């Protein structure tokens, strides 16, 4: 009997919760408040306020439930390659890191590993969604977009018969969509600076770049260095 009652209670509770959506306060508790609630570290008043929020907010209640579910979770080793990437990321660079790994074929271009959104026809598709749809190959160019704070960066890579490629970097303000003034884009191979341009147009193109690993650094007049693109183009 208790099972039936519990099941009915669950259904009614979901229905009640759905009806409370209009009561949802605008501000969600921050991570520290949720973590403290999960660890019973809040005083009664603070805990009560956040519990009231949990009762009407699906996002926060899911986040809290997961916190409780995964404590004491089985440890997983971080792959070495990923450790190396993180080491580079935290070793002092404040600019965000963006990795793009592509395979050039004679008449196509294959995505191996990218983050950000990829332009597919007229649609911007997040990289994981593209993977889940098993789309990897592009005809002869690929355009990838990623946001760094207030700046949206677009990287367009064009395959030149599988032997070289051109790279166009465009940076625009996320809100106004205006190109970033005084944009400096530098192409490096290892420690060696190959090309560097300071432009007002918000776009820089590097032509006839041979296959290999490169770093592209982006600087704004106000923001300083705001992104590093790790580019690995291979056959």
């Amino acid at each position, binding site marked *: 009997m208790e099972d039936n009652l519990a099941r009915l209670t669950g259904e009614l509770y979901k229905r009640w919760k759905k009806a409370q959506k209009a009561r949802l306060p605008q501000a969600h508790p921050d991570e*520290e408040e949720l973590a*403290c609630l999960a660890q019973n570290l809040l005083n009664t008043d603070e805990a009560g306020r956040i519990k*009231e929020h949990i009762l009407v907010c699906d996002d926060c209640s899911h986040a809290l439930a997961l916190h409780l579910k995964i404590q004491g979770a089985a440890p997983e080793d971080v792959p070495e390659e990923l450790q190396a990437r993180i080491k580079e990321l935290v070793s002092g660079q404040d600019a965000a890191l963006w990795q793009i790994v592509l395979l050039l074929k004679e008449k196509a271009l294959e995505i191996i590993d990218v983050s950000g959104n990829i332009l597919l026809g007229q649609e911007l598709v997040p990289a994981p969604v593209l993977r889940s749809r098993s789309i990897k190959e592009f005809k002869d160019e690929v355009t990838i977009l990623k946001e760094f704070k207030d700046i949206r960066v677009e990287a367009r890579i064009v395959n030149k018969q599988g032997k070289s490629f051109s790279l166009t970097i465009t940076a625009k303000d996320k809100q106004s969509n205006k190109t970033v003034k005084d944009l400096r884009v530098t192409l490096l191979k290892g420690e060696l600076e190959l090309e560097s341009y300071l432009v007002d147009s918000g776009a820089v193109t590097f032509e006839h770049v041979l296959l290999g690993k490169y770093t592209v650094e982006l600087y704004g007049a106000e923001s300083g260095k705001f992104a590093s693109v790790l580019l690995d183009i291979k056959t």
Partner: protein
Amino acid sequence: MDDLGFVRRFVNGDKQAREELRVNYSRLIYSYIHNILAARGYSAGYGYAEEIFQGIFCSLIDDNCRKLRSFKAKNGCSLATWLRQVTINFTLSFLRKLKPMVALDEEMGGGSILADHLVDETHSARDLAGQAERLDRLQECISGLNTEDKYFIELHINHGLGFGELKDIFEVSRGAFDMRKSRILSRLKECFKNKGFMLDN
């Protein structure tokens, strides 16, 4: 280790602190990501863990470590506990952006398609209206519970968390946990009865 002091050293560019964050917390964060993905039904084969992992580290140090600076160690919250919640929120936000796409004409086995299941013709509009009215009346019993009882239902019944996962947050023994559940359900049963509804058994 003083977590707040450690974070201050990190955001001030202390090289040792930067290395310590990677060494001491990367396995923890990576494990949390794997467990969250598993809990949400995503296998390792999707390859999301790597992207989320890198995204979390980027988010911590982006904008002159703005995210990491928001850690205040309030109420004795440890860095590991805070990072667990940061990892959860980041991963859930990542998964929300995936927007799973299911074709309405996708076969679901037995020759039926999803669209067939969405069009349920077993109840008439009048049946459904009557059912909705009954449920609205029963729902008033949920409204009548206090916050603590609703919170118990939220975690135990709505999210399916068991005694093992909830014993610390409710600070109760197994017996007290079962008693609490039984008391809430009895109160609801009584309320249902007062509204003219009886359970068979």
